[in-house]
């Protein structure tokens, strides 16, 4: 494996292996951006990994009043799952429990796609027969009476099966605080890209996994090759000076959005990384046999 060094940071000659997923977008509005964000954050909570959470969810971007159907401030959230059918119960439960319940909220489709899911399929029945629909042009909005007025929810939302989950960067460093700071900066740069989310806490995973486990029933376990405390005990991927490894996982509605995000993340890490103790950037893959999308780091260099 021939690595190259840029600005004091070594970039491994490897690739991120990602998977095809189904993705959908929603626009959540409220009386203020604060409350749109609260609703969106709760709705996308516990949405890190599709394995354990049922869906990978996050906030894509904030929307100005001009960009929302009701002229109020809003947030666009994205949800990713194995299939539209698998996303459907997640959508119903998350919107029903976290958006319907949030003061002043409304929920709209946030992705144009010929394939649709019933966004209001569950939540509208909260109206107990008092719900009414208003169709304007091609869009139907349900109005559900609630204690602070009406909860408006669009009838359907678009879902794409062209989404990509699992684009990633592994960031190795010799200084824990500096590594976290540099990785945070990369996540912040990726957040500016449309159509992607970084679903893990703060956009960063510290517990990268490998497939399988010595224990029956566990489908994934710690990625020992990148655990710095095991560097002497296992076939390690860490460098001798590696004190910690952090991973950025990226889900996007398109493969291009994932590639653009990895490129942006790489650029940020190369620009500011060395001074913060970032020594190497690598990527996670399964030998290229499991996922159809391969993002080679050398193709994404700035």
């Amino acid at each position, binding site marked *: 494996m021939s690595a190259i060094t840029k600005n004091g940071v070594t970039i491994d000659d490897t690739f991120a292996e990602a998977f095809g997923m189904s993705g959908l977008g929603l626009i959540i509005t409220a009386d203020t951006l604060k409350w749109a964000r609260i609703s969106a954050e709760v709705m996308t909570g516990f949405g890190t990994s599709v394995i354990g959470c049922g869906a990978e969810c996050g906030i894509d971007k904030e929307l100005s009043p001009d960009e929302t159907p009701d*002229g*109020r401030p809003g947030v666009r959230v994205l949800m990713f799952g194995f299939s539209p059918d698998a996303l459907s119960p997640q959508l119903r439960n998350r919107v029903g429990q976290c958006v319907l319940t949030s003061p002043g909220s409304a929920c709209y489709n946030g992705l144009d796609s010929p394939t649709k899911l019933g966004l209001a399929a569950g939540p509208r029945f909260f109206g107990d027969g008092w719900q*009414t629909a*208003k*169709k*304007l042009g091609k869009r139907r909005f349900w109005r559900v009476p609630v204690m602070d*007025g*009406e909860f*408006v929810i669009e009838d359907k939302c678009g879902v794409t099966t062209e989404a990509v989950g699992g684009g990633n960067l592994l960031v190795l460093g010799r200084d824990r605080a500096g590594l976290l700071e540099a990785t945070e900066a990369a996540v912040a740069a990726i957040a500016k890209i449309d159509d992607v989310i970084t679903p893990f806490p703060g956009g960063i995973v510290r517990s990268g996994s490998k497939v399988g486990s010595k224990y029956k029933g566990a489908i994934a376990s710690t990625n020992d090759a990148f655990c710095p405390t095991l560097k002497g005990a296992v076939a390690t991927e860490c460098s001798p000076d590696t004190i910690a490894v952090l991973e950025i996982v990226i889900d996007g509605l398109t493969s291009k959005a994932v590639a653009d995000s990895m490129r942006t993340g790489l650029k940020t890490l190369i620009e500011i990384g060395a001074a913060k103790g970032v020594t190497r950037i690598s990527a996670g893959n399964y030998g290229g046999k499991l996922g159809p999308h391969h993002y080679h780091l050398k193709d994404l260099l700035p």
Partner: protein
Amino acid sequence: MSTLSFNLRTAPTEVLDLSALIPSKLAQLSLGDVARVALGSVPDAPLAGDVFDIAGTPGDTIVISGGSPFLDYVGAGLDGGTIMVGGPVGAYAGRGMKSGKITISGDAGAYLASTATGGLIHVKGSAGDFLGGTRPGDRFGLLGGTVLVDGSVGQRAGERMRRGVVVAKGKFGPAAGSRMVGGTLWTEAGFGARPGPLLRRGTLIGPSVDELLPTFADCGRVDPVILRILSRYIAETLGPLAPKALPATVRKLAGDRATIGKGEILLTA
């Protein structure tokens, strides 16, 4: 954009059925063929060339210069393109239209936009009775699209209307929203007497009601988000012709409670 012009030779003295004069039916014809199109379905129906001087090129726009209350079914079944009429039209203009735009510089007769499913109609004068309504045999009245009337509207607008939006700068006549099952009637001037008899669902928006049916229940001041969505939708659909955005708060009257009562009259003043 190619335009086909129809100029009335003389004012008609009998009702003419203009439903054949829509762009999709004429676009492939020569001018000579257009002149031989029958205006009606009876064997001795007059031909377009008997009634109009025809000029221009068949395409996506039709201009009818002048106008007459005897011109029925203008733009009926329109499925794309534009029809502009320089004066008044008779009954059934835009009936069953699916898309496209009709502009009528004068008044429109009864049953404007009945059973239409889409598109935009702009009447610069006033509109007659049963705007977006049903005639015998129709299950529903207006089913989609947008109608803008600069003047006033006759009786029983939106009878058994199901979807779509009708905006009037002037006043709606008595019994607007009669038996309506959905959609929106919006006036900047107010409603005549007893709007919404047997209103099932649907929304009537205006500053005032001349006389309210006793079967509407006062729900007081409300500020539903749908008002913002509706204002924005109409602003996008009508552009500079759109009425002023709705206020954040309106007074809601729920009814008609003589039936399922899930409709509403929203008073903006």
